[in-house]
């Protein structure tokens, strides 16, 4: 007897609950999903909204145990720029300078390093890659103290009672933040690996040297990873407070935003007076970063997935 292997006609599966009507099921699930998304959005945005509300609260300046202020006003924002003890604008400027230069220098270093590891072959390449990958894994607290004294030895930081200009502190921060940039080569290298090597070869035949190949050919092709690297290294200094505290110690006018905001909450006797200003300050710096991040979303994704997804 011949086995009649009959394959059933194709059926679109979707009637999990046995409903006859496909469309109803689809619509019902969609509505459920919408509701869930809405609830989740509320949960996620609630603290941010609370932060904004707190920054608009003017009936008291400390911590309170309710969410919605009784009186609204912009006093906190105004005070942020006029209080002599809170040089907010100076902090913002400091952080901005550090971030821009860090971003610039880090990007150049990282891209050059990744390109080198991706394209060039030389003795010790494998060893160096592994070393760089794990070098960054030491928890850095003791290192911060060491770096402080190294910077002091170089002369960037004061070693007695004399005062150095703020730029010294900023240079120190930029220097240290960019110094380790090469250790983050992994993502960019992955990206460069996906660019075909035949482009390089063609250019070499035309007589270009490696430096020219990098700057004139590879770099224009690497817009996503360039933006990703620049973006992530730009955002770093805005949130780093521990290292800044170690370097700048008590020089209030050399602080960055993160250090200043932290002090508003944890400085001696500060919180009762400065909590709402803290909220205002936090809101003010979140706005540009948020805009930047939204704009760069797709580059961020592309970067993290190592270029597996282009754009």
């Amino acid at each position, binding site marked *: 007897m011949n086995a009649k292997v009959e394959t059933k006609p194709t059926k679109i599966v979707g009637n999990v609950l046995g409903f006859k009507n496909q469309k109803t099921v689809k619509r019902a699930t969609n509505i459920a999903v919408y509701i869930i998304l809405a609830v989740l959005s509320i949960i996620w945005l609630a603290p941010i909204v609370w932060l904004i509300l707190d920054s608009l609260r003017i009936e008291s300046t400390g911590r309170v145990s309710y969410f919605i202020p009784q009186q609204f006003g912009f006093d906190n924002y105004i005070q942020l720029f006029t209080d002599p003890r809170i040089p907010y604008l100076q902090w913002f400027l400091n952080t901005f300078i550090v971030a821009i230069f860090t971003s610039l220098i880090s990007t150049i270093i990282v891209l050059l390093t990744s390109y080198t590891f991706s394209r060039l072959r030389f003795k010790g390449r494998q060893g160096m890659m592994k070393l760089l990958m794990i070098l960054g894994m030491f928890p850095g607290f003791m290192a911060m103290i060491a770096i402080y004294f190294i910077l002091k030895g170089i*002369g960037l930081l004061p070693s*007695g*009672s004399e005062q150095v200009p703020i730029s010294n502190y900023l240079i120190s921060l930029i220097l240290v933040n960019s110094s380790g940039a090469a250790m983050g080569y992994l993502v960019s290298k992955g990206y460069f690996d996906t660019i075909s090597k035949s482009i390089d070869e063609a250019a070499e035949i035309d007589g270009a040297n490696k430096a020219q190949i990098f700057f004139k050919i590879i770099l224009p092709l690497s817009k996503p990873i360039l933006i990703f690297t620049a973006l992530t290294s730009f955002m770093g200094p805005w949130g780093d407070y521990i290292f800044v505290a170690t370097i700048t110690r008590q020089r*209030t006018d050399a602080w960055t935003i993160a250090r200043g905001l932290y002090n508003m909450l944890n400085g001696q*006797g500060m919180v009762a007076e400065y909590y709402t200003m803290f909220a205002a300050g936090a809101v003010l710096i979140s706005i540009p970063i948020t805009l930047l991040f939204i704009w760069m979303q797709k580059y961020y994704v592309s970067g993290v997935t190592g270029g597996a997804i282009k754009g």
Partner: protein
Amino acid sequence: MFKPKSLFLLMASLLALSGCGDTTEGETVRLQVWGPAKEGEKEVYEYLAGKFQEAHPEITFKMGFGDVGEGDAATMALGDIDTAADVFMFADDQLANLVQKGVLNALPTTYANIVKGRDLERCVNDASFTKQDEEEKVYAFPLSSDNGYMLVYNKAFFTATDVQTLEGMMAKANKDHQVVIDMGNGYYSLSGLLDYGELSYDPYARVHETDFDSTANANALQGLIDIIQPKKDKGFKSVNVDDIMTDFSDANGNKVVAAVTGNWNVDNIMEELGDDFAATKLPTYTSADSSTVQMGSFSGSKLVGVKSSSLVSAWALAFAEFVTNEAAQQYRFEAIKKGPSNIVVDGSAAVLAEPGLAALDAQYPFSIPQGKSVGESFWTPAASVGNFIVNGPAGVDGPQTIQEQLAAFVAAVTAAPEV
């Protein structure tokens, strides 16, 4: 250091500032000062610095002010002694640490005598330390005497009699009008025993000596538990006073009607309470064996210290002495209402009229000096006892009775530290 340039600079400035030379006219002296910038201290400092310059017109002083709170001064100085300020303000519980780490040296005898002559005895004690195999010496200049705590209350709600006993206060307090003591903070948590029991600290062995686990003391805390626990969150709230300051006001319904706090909060609370503000010493309570126990507290002073390795020691001492002398203290009191350490100023009518300072004075007989009584290992175990008093046992694994909890506390604070 590596860079030759900074080395030469250092040597040059050393030569210029060497104290064992002669000071010629038109010389510049660079002094670095640390103090908290908030609460008006910076303005006081600037005024005094100006006056100091006037007093010495032949020298140009370049004085820098760094915003370092009293609690942070020691850590900051120890972090890098080279860049520490020549003159800095600190809280007296850091004295032992600073002396033992060599940041502070004993004052020259002349200065020590000045301090002993003009400042309150308890402040002089707070500024003194006995190094091993030496006699007691003064190591810093007292600045203020009000680093302790007392009871602040709403006198429209409590009468003067009510606040004399804890039971009286609890009888009136309820869910909408609470009494606040931050039992989760080791600073306040053992106030029930600070007067009743014994507690002292040996800074050399770094262990405490205490009898807090005795039956009498356990009974005392049991009495406290019996008063507080039934009223937990329904009359008694254990929370940081900073967080509930606005709850004092009428606008917020007087949700808080009394709190144990120090002079640093008095201004803020006065703002909230207005005329209803009152302050007094801490109340008494009844122990489980029916004896009356007075709640104790810590007392302390703010001190001005001179860095031991300062390059301008003579001028630093002169400046430190200047900002703590009678005129300076008078000015300081008038400007920011801090409790002075100067005997004359402290006895003046204006000071006696300050409710916060008067309350601290009244509480003083029942307080122990913080710098001499507790060390680092005190705070966490003390907080655990406080939590036990308010919440009961923390879990099935931990101490189940107050006796056990106190035994654990004593074990922790008398344990020899890790070497």
